[in-house]
């Protein structure tokens, strides 16, 4: 049972010190981790070099399993990208005050997950050096890409989402860049000066910035929903058994938000511990997000159950081999591991208040990430290995190159996040300060004594 901590009312100067501290001080542990991440990321590019040199055959894909680990991991990363911006935007739109320490971590996850995920449509190509043919410009014979293809929808949607989330990450960062500029020295000061764009914090600037952020929040929510729906349509637009399902759109969005919140919780736990932000990322934040995660776990289970029930009940000849291979066949161990990771383990941890502690939430979130990766894998490979004509059934096993690239992108993502954490405060300084002011005013206006003590009758209730 945690003791109620003493109330923490920091001054703005202290908030600035606490949240900017990690930017200006770096310890040996950081450098050690950085070296490891660079090594893992290097592994990705080395493996990719060999794949480009010797041919895409270095990956373990075959006929009929033409897609494998790369597309699995692609969908996984795009899914994780849904946490940040969606959660941050939704919480902002409903004006939930507890969003304040979370928004920056979340938005950063989105941006870097998108960057990492966008690598895969290039990596998995047979002729990756020609990837630019998918860019919407005509070639020398005035041939444009094919906009009827779900992959082109992917291209447009993911780029829109990337632009939107970079903007949504950067806009609230501007005032924090100004704080960093005012506190930094040397080369850092020059860098933050440029990034702060000359921000001074005038009233005009704040009004417009907040308006821009709220417009962005309203735009980014439908974009996020559409992006993963479109990614799901890479599968749902085909004729393949157990892919041709109308449930895929919402199923993938729910799964994305699910894995995204789990990733966000893991990031928050690590940031809280290593940047010593125990006073800002409070147990209540983890508790609230854990409750959202629980809701998503139930939703995920609901969608999965529906999908499999309908398939089983329909008993269609092409679909049943896929179904049984997952429930009791070759993929059964992975399938049931997925169910355990996504539902059985998180359910008690997230449902029972006593178990909803930060360490156990970390465990649940890690299980969920493993489970969600498995879910993507189990959507792709069993269907592909059981096509319509049974003579063409196959098997799939990832090759070393493939596994190296796919697993190495975890290192790439964490590396990008790591570098970002040294360059921008991971908790939005001005939003925290605003939060304390709002809290103070709401306490004051709720107190009857304050109604009499005004200056020129100027007290307004909290915004």
């Amino acid at each position, binding site marked *: 049972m945690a003791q109620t901590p003493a109330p923490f009312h920091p*001054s*703005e100067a202290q908030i*600035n010190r606490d949240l900017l501290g990690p930017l200006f001080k770096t310890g040996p542990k950081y450098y050690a981790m950085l070296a490891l991440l660079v090594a893992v990321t290097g592994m990705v590019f080395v493996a990719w070099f060999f794949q480009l040199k010797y041919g895409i055959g270095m990956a373990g894909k075959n006929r009929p399993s033409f897609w494998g680990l790369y597309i699995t991991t692609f969908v996984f990363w795009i899914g994780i990208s849904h946490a940040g911006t969606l959660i941050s935007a939704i919480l902002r739109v409903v004006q939930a005050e507890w969003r304040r320490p979370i928004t920056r971590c979340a938005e950063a996850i989105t941006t870097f997950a998108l960057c990492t995920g966008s690598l895969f449509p290039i990596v998995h190509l047979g002729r990756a050096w020609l990837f630019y043919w998918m860019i*919407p410009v005509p070639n020398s014979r*005035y*041939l*444009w*890409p*094919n*906009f*009827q293809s779900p992959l*082109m*929808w992917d291209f*447009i*949607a993911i780029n*829109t989402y990337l*632009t*939107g989330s970079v*903007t949504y990450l950067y*806009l609230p960062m*501007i*005032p924090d860049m*100004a*704080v960093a500029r*005012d*506190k930094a020295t040397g080369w850092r000061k020059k860098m933050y*000066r440029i990034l702060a*764009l*000359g921000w*001074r*914090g*005038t*009233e*005009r600037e*704040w*009004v*417009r*910035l*907040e*308006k*821009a952020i709220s*417009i*962005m929040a309203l*735009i980014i929510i439908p*974009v996020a929903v*559409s992006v993963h729906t*479109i990614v799901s349509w890479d599968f749902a637009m085909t004729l393949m058994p157990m892919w041709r399902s109308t449930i895929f759109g919402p199923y993938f969005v729910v799964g994305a938000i699910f894995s995204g919140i789990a990733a966000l919780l893991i990031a928050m736990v690590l940031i809280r511990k290593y940047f010593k932000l125990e006073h800002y990322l409070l147990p209540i934040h983890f508790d609230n997000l854990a409750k959202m995660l629980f809701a998503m776990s139930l939703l995920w289970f609901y969608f999965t159950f529906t999908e499999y029930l309908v398939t089983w009940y329909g008993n269609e000849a092409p679909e049943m081999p896929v179904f049984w291979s997952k429930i009791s066949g070759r993929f059964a161990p992975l399938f049931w591991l997925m169910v355990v990771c996504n539902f059985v383990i998180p359910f008690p941890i997230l449902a029972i208040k006593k178990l909803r502690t930060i360490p156990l939430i970390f465990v649940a979130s890690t299980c969920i990430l493993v489970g969600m990766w498995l879910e993507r894998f189990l959507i792709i490979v069993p269907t592909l290995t059981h096509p319509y004509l049974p003579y063409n059934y196959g098997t799939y096993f990832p090759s070393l190159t493939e596994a190296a690239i796919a697993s190495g992108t975890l290192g790439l993502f964490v590396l990008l996040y790591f570098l970002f954490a040294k360059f921008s405060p991971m908790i939005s*300084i*001005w*939003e925290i*300060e605003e939060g304390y*002011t*709002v809290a103070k*005013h709401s306490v004051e206006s709720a107190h009857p004594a304050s109604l009499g003590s005004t*200056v*020129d009758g*100027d007290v*307004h209730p*909290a*915004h």
Partner: protein
Amino acid sequence: MPQTCLVKFAEPTQARVAVRRLIKDGIDPESMEVMSSQPIHGERIIPEKKPTKLRTWALSGAAIGLLSGLALATITALNYPLIKGGMPIVAPWTVGLITYETTMLGAVIATLVGLLVELGLPNFKNLPYDPSVVDGGIVLAVACPDGLRQTVETALNGAGATKVNWV
């Protein structure tokens, strides 16, 4: 030569009082600026003549995006008509999808550009600024012509200003 004074207040209410006095004493609101480390809630401290037009920016960007998306999906298909899968050359579903995404993209870019244009950022000129504002408090900057310096000082001192810096 107009000079600018920077005054630091502890609370927004004090700044409001000061601004009201200055306006009453005839100082033009356009020559005043209020700076803070966080957005100030409640009524505007300095009334603004031209409200923000960001929503217009966003909507125009969306409109441009919409038209671009329509053009992209239809004209490129008609340019090199290939029959694919027995589907029509221009299918409303796919055109609609692409158009939706480009509309959103247009709105996003227009919002960002609109914000930067309206604020005049990036702006690295030495505009009046007090770096200590990031640690709390409100800074009021008044650019006043020569003769009114005394008026300004009186108004500010009356509002409870602790220190008036002239730059």
